[in-house]
Structures are given as C-alpha cells and as structure tokens.
C-alpha cells in the first residue's frame, strides 16, 4: 500500500530555534556521508535542513506502515538526485522524495512507492498557515469527493498519525501533517 509523508521547515524559525553548528548536532542526526556533503556544501545551513526534512518526511511515511515511534534520524540516509528529487534509505525500505526550497521554507514529500495519480489513487499536498492545515485538507477532500466539508472529521491513529473520516469511514488512504514556525503543510492520498 503506498504511503505518503511530508515535512516542512520554516527557514527563519530554524535560524532562531536551532543551531546546526552546535557541537554534536550533526553527529547525532546525520551519517558520515551526509555530514561530509553538508560541510562541502556552498550553503551548509540549507543542506542541513533539506536532509532533515527528507528524513522526517520518510519517517512519517514509514510510521504509517509500521505503527511505532522512535527518534533515529541517523538511520535514515539521504541521497540527492537532480532537481531536489532524492531517496531516503531506512533499513530495507527506500523512500522517494521531492523537496521544494524557497527563501522562506523547505518542504519535502516522501513516498514508499512512486505514486502516480490514477483512478485508484490521487495524491495531494500543500502548504499554508499552521492553524488552517486541517481545514485546507477538509476543503480539498470535500472538493474531490463531494462530501460536505462539515461532515469530514479529523481523527488520529494510536501513534498520532492523522486520518480524515466521514461517518466512521476513513477517507484518506495515507495522510501526513507537519508544522514548523509560521508554516503548516500536508500530504495525503485518496
């Protein structure tokens, strides 16, 4: 079953809330290969947060399949391809990522299988204000399914992953929400 995860990093917030140059910060979260790539990068700050968002998006994709929580960013290894496409490898799993970078934020969507929009599965993602994300998702679902916005309900799985329901029926095949600073973001499939 295809799953989707996403992660947003507010770059201004990352500058004030985190210090990537802090001793131990890179060593604990990034593999040796990633650390070298960060240090050799023209903009190490951006590389740190791009890798971080890839790892986090892959983790959120993985935990929808395997319902457990843990903090092991170093076990998710990122490889960048062209145009901000990339892969994240975690144990026997491979995730396909696409990152969008602007001067304000970094947003990554990760999938465990290449999801092609079709009759069977449709994928959506977006960025907005953090407290409007649930509504943005409901609006999108309402638009695509014809179900009334007011009857779409947000629930959570036992590990805290979001689901959107209509009369006890789960509408989202996979769903991920992320918040950071002034941004919220989502990715889901129907």
């Amino acid at each position, binding site marked *: 079953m295809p799953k989707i995860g996403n992660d947003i*990093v507010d770059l201004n917030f*990352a500058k004030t*809330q*985190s210090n990537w140059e*802090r*001793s*131990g*910060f890179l060593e*604990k*979260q990034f593999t040796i290969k990633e650390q070298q790539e960060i240090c050799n990068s023209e903009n190490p700050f951006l590389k740190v947060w791009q890798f*971080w968002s890839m790892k*986090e998006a892959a983790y959120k994709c993985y935990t929808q399949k395997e319902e457990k*929580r*843990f*903090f*092991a*960013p*170093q*076990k998710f290894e990122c490889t960048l391809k062209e145009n901000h496409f990339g892969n994240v490898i975690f144990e026997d799993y491979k995730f396909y990522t696409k990152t969008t970078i602007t001067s304000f934020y970094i947003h990554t969507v990760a999938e465990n299988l290449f999801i092609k929009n079709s009759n069977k599965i449709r994928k959506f993602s977006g960025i907005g204000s953090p407290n409007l994300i649930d509504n943005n998702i409901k609006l999108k679902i309402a638009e695509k399914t014809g179900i009334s916005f007011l009857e779409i309900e947000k629930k959570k799985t036992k590990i*805290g992953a979001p689901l959107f329901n209509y009369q006890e029926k789960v509408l989202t095949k996979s769903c991920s929400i992320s*918040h*950071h600073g002034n941004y919220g973001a989502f990715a889901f499939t129907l």
Partner: protein
Amino acid sequence: MTKQEIIQKLTSIVKPYIQNEEGFKNISENTDFINDLEINSANLVDIILDVEDEFKIHIDNDSMEKMMSVKETVAIIQAKMNA
C-alpha cells in the same frame, strides 16, 4: 540524584522548546515530548544534547531512539548515571 531531581532538571531543559503550555503545566512521568508538549522533532536533538551536558553522560544512538517521553528519558539518565 533522586528521580524527582532528575525530572526537575529535565523540566527546565525542555522548557525553551515546548509549544503547549497546558501540557507543560501538567508535566509528569507520563508526558510525551511531541504529543503532549508539542516539541518540534527538530528540537529533540537539542534536548538530548542538553541532557548530555547537564547530567554529564553520553547518550548512544540506541538510547536516543527511545527518548520521546519523560519516563523513557529519566530511565536512560538513571541507567547512564549509575553505569
């Protein structure tokens, strides 16, 4: 160091990163960093580094993996301090 003292120190460590005041007011052994305090996952590593500095211990990757709640974190700090 007693468990209460550890929790007290841990409470001051997490304070700068919390985003849910209500959750922080009710902090207890059962508090989860992400679900209850809404700490951003990007700050979990800061908490781990702060814990290492404060308690003068080294947290290996296997321990770090479990540090998502007060209970787990206290257990790891106790184990490392007694090692």
